[in-house]
């Protein structure tokens, strides 16, 4: 007689009865089946017929377990299976509770899906936080920020430059549309509280600076209008950051004296914590009233009185009921009036009003372009993550088809099933969203270490504010809908007859087509990202291949600013010469020379140049050329090749014949095709200075690696005095930093109070100058790889699932004589078909997508064949790797087992 117990227990396993109940029920059913079997045998049925008929008493698979649930368990499933439809809040709550239980029952699935979503949302949170801090939120520490406007000077309608002090006074006096016009400038300064002096960033501001911004003090008071009166006692306000880091958050600092560039100042207060000045590009350590602090500037009188000296940044606040357009119109009128009154200096000058503080319009535009790319990249990552989770949900939906069919057969409506599935999706989105938010906040710290953020916005307070939280929540909801809605509708379309039948649907299942489509989409999207990443990496390669025109590896640079320490010109000259001699004597130093401009620092010093035989008018723009003031030995120290003529010597004296070394680019502009050596040219507005060319050097890259050949001329320091010079030290071999202590000591021996600042190797400078490209390559590369991994996991999951569902088919194939290699090839080919489709669609999508990155590329075209081939190879390799394990599994199918599974 057959033993029914195993079969009965199997059917009851899902009901999860208590042990006693299960024993009783099993015994009772067992007897029932026995009785049935014996009756049929007694009527003459064969063993097999009787056995099968008895088993039929248990109904179809899944039937007994559903019936048994409500009948015996004291606490039935919280969600009504069909008859009662939960509605309203209670219904949703029930859905959520049931969803939570389903997710708990499948921890592997839940963790994978939540992690995938977390990666997508994390990437988006990181990038959005940066975007928010740079472009969206108002400047921290200001009130009614929408009224604040930045003013910039235009020349022939172009640019956004600084103003002269007299112009500032005229704009301020003339404007009615702005309730305040404020002038500021940032200078490096030396601060000491008795001990060694430190180099800080000081912002010189007019008296209404803080009042206009609406900034609060965290200690003492801020600057007021009276502090800016002539003859007012010199006072200073510290930034919160400087107070903490440089003054140990000492609360007794208020009222104390500090020396700034050797002059005594009284600290009257500390600004509020969030406020770091009005420039996002750099934090300010100390705020000083402009009038008293102007004495700190070299040539203070000229700075104050000359309309030609442009050095002030202006901002203002719109008066009540004034618009940006009105302010623009009014200030333009004033600019025109000034140009008429002072044509010598103001001709062609205009004024542009730009909303918001923090960034100049052009910088804002550059950042917007850069961030657009990053937003696009992380958007794609999130899409891929969503496709991946949708795929997981679909696969799970197939596995749950029978459960859903039973619900449907018991009367659950389709909307009911969709709601249930959406509740599960919502829970996954919340889980993934929360984890993603945490991940995003964490990876934000890593991202902020990338060169472009660390160098340009070092102290940018990128934090979590309501905007970021709102964004995170929106991303969560959106991705939840994206990944949960399609599978919910797909899965809830239950075909009762097929689903309730024994056995499993084959590969022609409509769900598997949707799944394949999702995998193709993932592969296509990650191809787009990989192409973008590849292009940035190729850009970096191209940049590093560019020959800058000087040696970078063995040169250390460090700046000395004796002008701030009250030195006069003669003393400074002696200091620089003595410092050079001492550094040249340091063991390990091969050569050393000072120069004013350090290459690849981003900025420069330029002027106009004219041929000697032209007597230019003030309007004549001439040839724009960069200038540097250098000591003899500079070219050798940097390894710049002198093509012709000589280096400067001690013989080039002040008051002697004015000499210059020009680069090829300037020589070619002034004397096309001719010999520059010994020629003379005019320098400066009006061309009043005449210089003779004593040498020609090869054209190098000065401000940026990617600039076109830039005209450049060098003057001997002795004939072009500068108050701040940078020592260039070339070591014989090894790490240039090794000689830094000795260089520092050499300066200390001359003047203990002089700090060395901006210490770097030229290699570091070169690297910083391509910071934007490095950042882009790092971020896009990282996210591209992340996308590839997600897509590969998606493909793996899809193939593994497909193989497991087709176990029987594989078994039949092998039973009919298919070789293992045939089956393996079959599975791999299927994966390759999907990958090929993904590649084709991805390539089609990449063409328009890479147009967005074109502006950031150097030396490589968006359709770069190396990048495209490489990326396709990587993607196909990933696809094969993802399909290999399922393919091997397919060949291990035992035909007997496979056929029995029917």
């Amino acid at each position: 007689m057959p033993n029914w117990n195993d079969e009965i227990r199997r059917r009851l396993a899902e009901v999860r009865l208590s042990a006693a109940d299960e024993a009783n029920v099993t015994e009772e059913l067992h007897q029932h089946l026995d009785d049935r079997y014996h009756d049929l045998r007694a009527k003459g049925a064969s063993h097999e017929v009787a056995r099968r008929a008895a088993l039929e008493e248990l109904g179809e698979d899944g039937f007994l377990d559903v019936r048994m649930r409500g009948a015996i368990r004291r606490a039935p499933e919280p969600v009504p299976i069909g008859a009662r439809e939960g509605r309203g809040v209670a219904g949703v709550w029930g859905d959520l509770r049931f969803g939570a239980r389903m997710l708990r029952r499948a921890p592997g699935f839940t963790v994978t899906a939540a992690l995938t979503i977390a990666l997508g949302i994390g990437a988006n949170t990181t990038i959005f936080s940066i975007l928010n801090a740079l472009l969206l939120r108002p400047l921290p520490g200001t009130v009614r920020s929408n009224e604040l406007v930045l003013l910039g000077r235009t020349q022939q309608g172009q640019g956004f430059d600084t103003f002269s002090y007299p112009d500032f006074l005229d704009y301020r006096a003339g404007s009615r549309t702005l309730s305040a016009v404020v002038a500021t400038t940032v200078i490096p300064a030396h601060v000491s509280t008795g001990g060694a002096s430190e180099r800080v960033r000081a912002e010189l501001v007019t008296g209404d600076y803080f009042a206009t911004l609406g900034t609060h003090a965290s200690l003492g008071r801020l600057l007021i209008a009276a502090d800016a009166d002539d003859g007012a006692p010199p006072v200073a306000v510290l930034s919160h950051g400087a107070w903490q880091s440089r003054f140990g958050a000492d609360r007794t600092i208020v009222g104390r004296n500090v020396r700034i560039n050797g002059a005594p100042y009284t600290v009257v207060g500390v600004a509020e914590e969030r406020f770091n000045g009005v420039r996002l590009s750099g934090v300010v350590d100390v705020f000083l009233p402009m009038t008293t602090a102007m004495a700190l500037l070299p040539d203070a009188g000229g700075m104050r009185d000359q309309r030609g000296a442009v050095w002030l940044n202006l901002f203002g606040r719109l008066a009540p009921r004034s618009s940006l357009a009105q302010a623009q119109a009014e200030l333009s009128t004033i600019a025109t009036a000034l140009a008429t009154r002072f044509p010598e200096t103001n001709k062609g000058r205009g004024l542009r009003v730009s909303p918001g503080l923090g960034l100049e319009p052009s910088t804002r535009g550059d950042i917007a372009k850069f961030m657009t790319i990053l937003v696009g990249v992380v958007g794609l990552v999130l899409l891929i993550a969503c496709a991946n989770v949708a795929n997981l949900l679909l696969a799970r939906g197939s596995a749950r088809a029978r459960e859903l069919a039973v619900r449907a057969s018991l009367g659950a409506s389709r909307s009911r099933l969709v709601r249930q599935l959406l509740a599960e999706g919502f829970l996954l989105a919340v889980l993934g969203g929360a984890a993603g938010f945490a991940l995003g906040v964490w990876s934000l710290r890593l991202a902020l270490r990338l060169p472009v953020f660390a160098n340009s916005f070092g102290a940018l307070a990128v934090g979590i504010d309501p905007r970021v939280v709102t964004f995170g929540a929106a991303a969560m909801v959106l991705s939840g809908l994206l990944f949960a809605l399609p599978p919910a509708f797909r899965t809830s379309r239950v075909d009762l007859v097929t689903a309730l039948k024994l056995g499993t649907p084959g590969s022609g299942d409509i769900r598997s087509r949707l799944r394949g489509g999702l995998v193709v989409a993932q592969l296509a999207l990650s191809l787009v990202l990989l192409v973008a990443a590849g292009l940035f990496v190729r850009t970096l390669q191209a940049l590093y291949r560019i020959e800058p025109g000087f040696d970078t590896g063995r040169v250390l640079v460090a700046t000395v600013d004796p002008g701030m320490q009250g030195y006069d010109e003669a003393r400074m000259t002696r200091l620089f010469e003595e410092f050079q001699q001492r550094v040249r004597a340091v063991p390990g130093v091969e050569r050393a020379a000072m120069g004013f401009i350090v290459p690849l620092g981003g900025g420069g010093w330029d002027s106009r140049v004219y041929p000697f035989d032209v007597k230019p008018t003030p309007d004549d723009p001439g040839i724009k050329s960069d200038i540097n003031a250098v000591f003899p030995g500079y070219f050798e120290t940097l390894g710049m090749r002198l093509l012709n003529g000589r280096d400067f010597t001690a013989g080039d004296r002040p008051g002697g014949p004015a000499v210059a070394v020009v680069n090829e680019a300037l020589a070619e502009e002034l004397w096309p095709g001719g010999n520059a050596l010994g020629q003379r040219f005019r320098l400066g507005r009006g061309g009043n200075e005449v210089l003779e060319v004593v040498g020609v050097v090869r054209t190098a890259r000065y401000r940026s690696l990617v600039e076109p050949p830039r005209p450049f001329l060098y003057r001997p320091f002795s004939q072009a005095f500068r108050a701040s010079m940078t020592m260039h030290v070339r070591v014989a071999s090894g790490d240039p930093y090794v000689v830094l202590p000795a260089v520092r000591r050499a300066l200390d021996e001359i003047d203990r109070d002089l700090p060395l600042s901006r210490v770097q190797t030229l290699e570091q400078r070169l690297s910083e100058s391509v910071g934007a490209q490095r950042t882009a390559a790092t971020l896009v590369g990282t996210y591209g790889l992340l996308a590839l991994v997600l897509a590969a996991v998606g493909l793996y999951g899809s193939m593994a699932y497909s193989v497991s569902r087709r176990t029987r088919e594989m078994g039949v194939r092998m039973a009919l004589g298919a070789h293992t290699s045939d089956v393996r090839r079959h599975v791999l080919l299927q994966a390759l078909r999907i990958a090929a489709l993904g590649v084709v669609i991805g390539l089609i999508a990449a063409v328009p997508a890479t147009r967005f990155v074109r502006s950031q590329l150097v030396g490589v075209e968006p359709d770069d064949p190396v990048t495209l081939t490489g990326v396709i190879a990587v993607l196909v390799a990933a696809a094969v790797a993802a399909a290999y394990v399922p393919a091997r599994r397919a060949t291990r199918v035992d035909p007997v087992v496979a056929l029995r599974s029917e």
Partner: protein
Amino acid sequence: MLADELKKGTTPMLILSLLEAEQRHGYELSKLLEQRTQGVVRVHAASLYPLLYRLERQRLIEGRWVEKPGERRRRFYRLTAEGKRQLDAQRKSWLEFARAIGHVAGVEYA
């Protein structure tokens, strides 16, 4: 199908009536149901036992294990007082319903 719906709704009443006279075990109930309805109502074990457990939970019937010498123990079900009341009420409404149907549909009630 009308017949299916009717069967679903009436099986509990049929079981209660079969238990009215004496206590019976599950297999006996299923056989009696089939015989007395001439095979119209046929209940599988998979439906019968959950139904019995449900009726038991509603305290309409009571099951207990009975051991007889020489036989395996069996679970017998008997009607409770509450079950009897429920059965009478159902019979009454069923009769009224059947009469009403008879008047409208012109089916003679036997």
